[in-house]
């Protein structure tokens, strides 16, 4: 802490302030004054099903431009079929066995993936918080599945929040990342995403993911799969209009 005081005193000297005046945020409230995000939150929570559908279409369009494949489904069963098809058709990059890993999330549990691989040599792992072998399982998996908290239509961005059952590595270490995005978690732009994050208080670690890992370091030629996943699939799960309406009333505007 002495280090810190000397360091900050030096800054105060550079700013021609009395060095011993240890001013704090309270003395300059304007510095941390945040714009009122109430109207933004109200706007994003009062969207009609038709508007959400528009956002979904915008997301698909922007995702395609970035090399992301989107799949729109109406039910968990349909989503599970998309995953199974990908697991069956894709080959592992770093190992000989097919292992996949998914976040411990109700939407992903609802896919009941293990049931679909009863006759195939595919191992399905779930990222339970207490699992000490999580690291090895993640490294061994060629597909990682997450359920992002937020999807941003304007930039085709997924927001994954780290927490118990939701490790950072699931969307990173496997060669293919599949995101099951509930359509109700879709927002229009980054300003809306930040407003939501601010309301929830950002956890210690979170990540914005916009497309597959890529590099253009060799003669400016774009190559997918530098260090992270070389493929990203977004499965947009759109619930029925009735369910969407129920969500709206669950979250009255301004709350």
């Amino acid at each position, binding site marked *: 802490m002495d280090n810190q005081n000397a*360091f900050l005193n*030096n800054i105060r*000297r550079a700013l*021609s302030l009395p060095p011993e005046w240890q001013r704090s945020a309270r003395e*300059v409230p304007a510095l941390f004054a945040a714009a009122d995000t109430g109207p933004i939150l109200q706007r994003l929570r009062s969207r009609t099903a038709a508007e959400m559908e528009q956002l979904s279409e915008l997301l698909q369009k922007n995702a395609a431009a970035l090399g992301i494949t989107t799949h729109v489904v109406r039910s968990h069963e349909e989503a599970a079929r998309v995953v199974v098809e990908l697991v069956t058709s894709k080959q592992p990059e770093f190992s000989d066995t097919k292992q996949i890993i998914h976040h411990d999330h109700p939407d992903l549990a609802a896919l009941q993936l293990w049931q679909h691989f009863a006759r195939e040599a595919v191992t399905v792992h779930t990222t339970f918080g207490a699992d000490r072998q999580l690291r090895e399982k993640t490294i061994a998996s060629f597909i990682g599945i997450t359920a992002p908290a937020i999807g941003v239509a304007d930039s085709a961005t997924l927001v994954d929040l780290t927490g118990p059952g939701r490790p950072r590595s699931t969307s990173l270490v496997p060669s293919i990342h599949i995101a099951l995005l509930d359509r109700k978690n879709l927002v229009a732009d980054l300003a809306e995403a930040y407003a939501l994050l601010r309301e929830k208080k950002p956890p210690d670690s979170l990540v914005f993911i*916009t497309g597959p*890992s890529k590099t253009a370091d060799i003669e400016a030629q774009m190559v997918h799969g*530098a260090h992270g996943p070389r493929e990203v699939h977004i499965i947009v799960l759109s619930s029925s209009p009735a369910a969407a309406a129920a969500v709206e009333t669950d979250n009255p505007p301004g709350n």
Partner: protein
Amino acid sequence: MSRTPPSAYRTAAAVGIASPRLQKSLRGIQDRFGKGAMALWAGLEDKELRHRVKAARLRTLEHLDIVLAELAENIRARGGRVHFAASGQDAIRYILEVATRNKVKRVVKGKSMTSMEIDIDPALAGAGIEVVETDLGEYIIQLAGDRPSHIIAPCIHLDRHQIGALFTEKLGIDSTDDPPTLTMAARRALREKMLDAEMGLTGCNLACAETGQISLVSNEGNIRMATTMPPVHVALMGMERVVATMDEHRQTLQLLTRGAALQKLSTYVSFLGGPAGTGDPDGPREFHLVILDNGRSRILADPEFREVLACIRCGACLNICPVYGKIGGHAYHSPYCGPIGAVVTPLLDGINKHADLCKGETLCGACKAICPVEIDLPRMLAGLRHKLAYGSDRWNTRQHSPAEACVFSLWRLLVTHGFLYRSLIRIGWLLQRPFVKKNKMIGTMAGIAGGWTADRDLPPLAGQTFATLWKKNYATRRPPAAVTGNEEGA
């Protein structure tokens, strides 16, 4: 022109200019990203965005003590550790301590210009620690024992054949010059390194004081690997790389990724505020943030140069600068090259030592026009030249060339005394006669003036000066009749 041996700047610039490969790459990157960024700014819906972010950057700098204290407090509240390092030596000492305590044998680095600024690699190597760069471009540079030459495209000066040969030699892969194959070879080699390393060392693009997080952008995913898989993560940030609020963070981030590579967002933006929390299944056990001064407070103290700390290191100015576009990044002899490097390198590392940098730029203003936060680099380049011309106690700068100062004093005397000036022109006209060639040009001049004619001919002084001609032919003419029907009448 000069009798002293050519400077390192000139030598490296000459090498760059003579390389057709580099010229082609630079043209490519400037055509795409330089022109692209200008078009992006012109089409920006939110016309005030750049202006607003600039104002916020300056406001943060004016309150940097408060913002950094807030950042440190909030990161500590998340379980992260914060170290304030006054100098590069101090930062190195701290990071080595962390590495030793954790018995680190291998450090994987995510592209960090600040770590290059403090030159930490030799110190780590000296402690028996293997250092691996993980950004593909930086990795190639490291394998080649070379230096990066662009902020976002470090190995822009190497082509696929050179990189292919390098990989065959160092990684033992079959000979190829196919970029996807080369990238996959690096992917496999680096994956093992990143999964086994005990420490990840990264920079920081933008810290946010309000939330107590740093944020890092990357397209490759190496930064996420380096901050997720090793048990220890150390982030090193220049003290100015911070914003106060989330709102400022969002706006600044949007300018950063657009300015750097015309992207709405880079592939990954990681927000990190502490080690893995209780219940978090992965992530580092320890998170350290090292906040570095290393000469920045001296820049902060000088109102003339404070603005340069508003830079968000997107590299856009490299993509438009006509000088960088010819000489390339190596001539700058610094992790920070291009126009921003020409200002910040002398300020951090000595104005006299890097005297060539500000003199080499053209003051054309392109860097100011493209800068997402509208930093007036040309003004500061001129300011640095002023320091070199007159010396400066504040910057420990001595007059760069007393002889040049003498010449200019003499010049001032001449141009402010008409009789002296005209007489000298007359004498010059007489003296030049033996040097005028058949084509009526001067082909060679003597002494230090020889440089002027080394590569070109100069027109001789005219027999009649402009003033004489004017008096003779035009002074008595009446001005054309005033145009009627001016704006007031309309």
